[in-house]
């Protein structure tokens, strides 16, 4: 009986050794639950496209230039199978300055005119990363559909503009659809990518380009149109 027990014990020990060795030699992936995304790009609001406008105020003030918009997005993955799906929340900030124009048409004034926006977006997304993880294809196409709320304000000099009884600040609701493609950086430096995961918990990193179609005008209501068609570029980190 005792010899049987010893034999079983030795057998269990021998079976356990390879398991221990495997844990040491084969790096493991940390769980992947979300992503953090940084992006930036030009944002040109479609203010001049508002119905009923008799002139092009944005163009007259800023010319053809766009605002520089930077955004931070947090994503949470709720499905990981054939691709990844989840919810994302982003916050951004953009501003544009130009000289105000003299009211008598005599040229540029000393005051600076500015438009500032702080777009917030809640979106649902899907990215097809199955091919990247399964077959090593480093490109990951994705799409998003989101609800947008964009606080905005217009200043002249150091204060918010006031015209008659109207103050140049407020917020607009809208929606946005985005399509983009990410390039999986892990393929360039696989070992560095593994270290990034084991040290910081970042599973994958991507560079991406995306195009956004946004209608931000209180769903067709009267007033300012902060919608846009824009390209954005950035860095995404899965964690």
């Amino acid at each position, binding site marked *: 009986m005792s010899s049987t027990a010893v034999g079983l014990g030795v057998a269990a020990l021998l079976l356990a050794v390879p398991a221990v060795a495997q844990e040491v030699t084969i790096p493991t992936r940390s769980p992947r639950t*979300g992503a953090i995304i940084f992006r930036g790009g030009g944002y040109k609001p479609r203010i001049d496209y508002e119905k*009923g406008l008799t002139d092009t105020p944005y163009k007259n003030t800023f010319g053809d230039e766009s605002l520089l918009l930077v955004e931070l997005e947090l*994503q949470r993955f709720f499905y990981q199978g054939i691709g990844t799906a989840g919810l994302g929340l982003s916050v951004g900030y953009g501003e544009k300055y130009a000289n*105000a124009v003299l009211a008598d048409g005599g040229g540029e*004034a*000393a*005051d600076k005119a*500015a438009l500032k926006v702080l777009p917030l977006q809640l979106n649902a997304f899907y990215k097809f990363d199955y091919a990247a993880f399964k077959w090593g294809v480093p490109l990951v196409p994705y799409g998003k559909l989101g609800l947008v709320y964009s*606080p905005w304000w217009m200043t002249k000099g150091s204060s918010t503009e006031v015209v008659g009884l109207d103050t140049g600040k407020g917020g607009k609701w809208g929606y946005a659809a985005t399509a983009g493609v990410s390039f999986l950086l892990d393929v360039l430096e696989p070992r560095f990518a593994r270290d990034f995961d084991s040290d910081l918990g970042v599973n994958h990193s991507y560079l991406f380009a995306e195009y956004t179609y946004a209608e931000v005008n209180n769903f067709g209501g009267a007033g300012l149109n902060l919608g846009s068609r824009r390209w954005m570029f950035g860095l995404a980190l899965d964690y």
Partner: protein
Amino acid sequence: MRLPLVALLLFALPAVAQTGTAVNFTTTSTSNNNTVVTSRDECTTTLRFSWSRTGTLCNGGTVYLYVTSGSCGGLAPVATDLTLDTVTGNTTTSGVVSFSMSQVLARQTGAPTCATQEKEVSFKLCAITPTISDSVLQTCSATYSSIGAPAFTLTYDPEAPSAPSIGKVIARDSALSVQVDNVEEDSNVIIELNAILKADAGIPEEDAGTDADAGTDDAGTVADAGTTPVGESEGPTLRFNKAAGEGNVVATGLINGVTYRIRAKLEDEAGNVSEASAVVEGTPVKSNGLFDAYKDANGQEQGGCASTGGGLAGGAVLAALGIWLSSRRKVS
């Protein structure tokens, strides 16, 4: 073995207590980095300092509270020092001392007065007590150590800064931005504006100066003021100020199209005000920002609190969702 240690400890205690003797000063006078600056106008104004003492004194020891042009400590106060209070023994541990800069000056060599003292001069507020010569018997020595803190400096500054000059006036919408040059450090730049009123200009004299609707569309409705000058007068004086080194002084709430006479002055830390600079004129001009241009183009946006309120609610919802998203446990 234990007994000598206890005895040593007991003997050492008074020495420790003496080391901790201190007088703490506080004042309600305006001070910057523990420096109280007095101008000529305030020369006879009473300065009050409260004091409180901690720790014990040597046997029969005295605390001298005084103002000196020299340094605190070493010897007892001398004739040119203004002694504020003399406290002997450990009974009194707090009090208030009051004096004016004129009293301090009167003790100086030549007994200058507020009027005759023309240069800036500084003094120290001191608290001193004899050092202990024998730590066992707690006897006082003939030398004094300074125990006052913080080290207050009292400065009499009778000199007004020299007059500044106005380098440039930038016309803005309902405002003028004034660049003032030759500004002394730590001074306050003051600009004074007076609207130029023309007898037939259509500016009611009681309205001259500021514009309650400054920045709005109707600002500058008196843009043709003074086109046919017959007589001139100045409206009420408007004052704006800014600390030196903070850029231009901006006078706001002005009427577009109305010319203002502008003078600049400096006020130093003591409150001395310089002579005025040479007069310069400036006229605010109406300008259009994006919102002006938008409204001029028949834009329907009304902005304001209603949409902002909705935004706050929406933002709160998005923030709550964000917190929820980020606080979900990591699924392995």
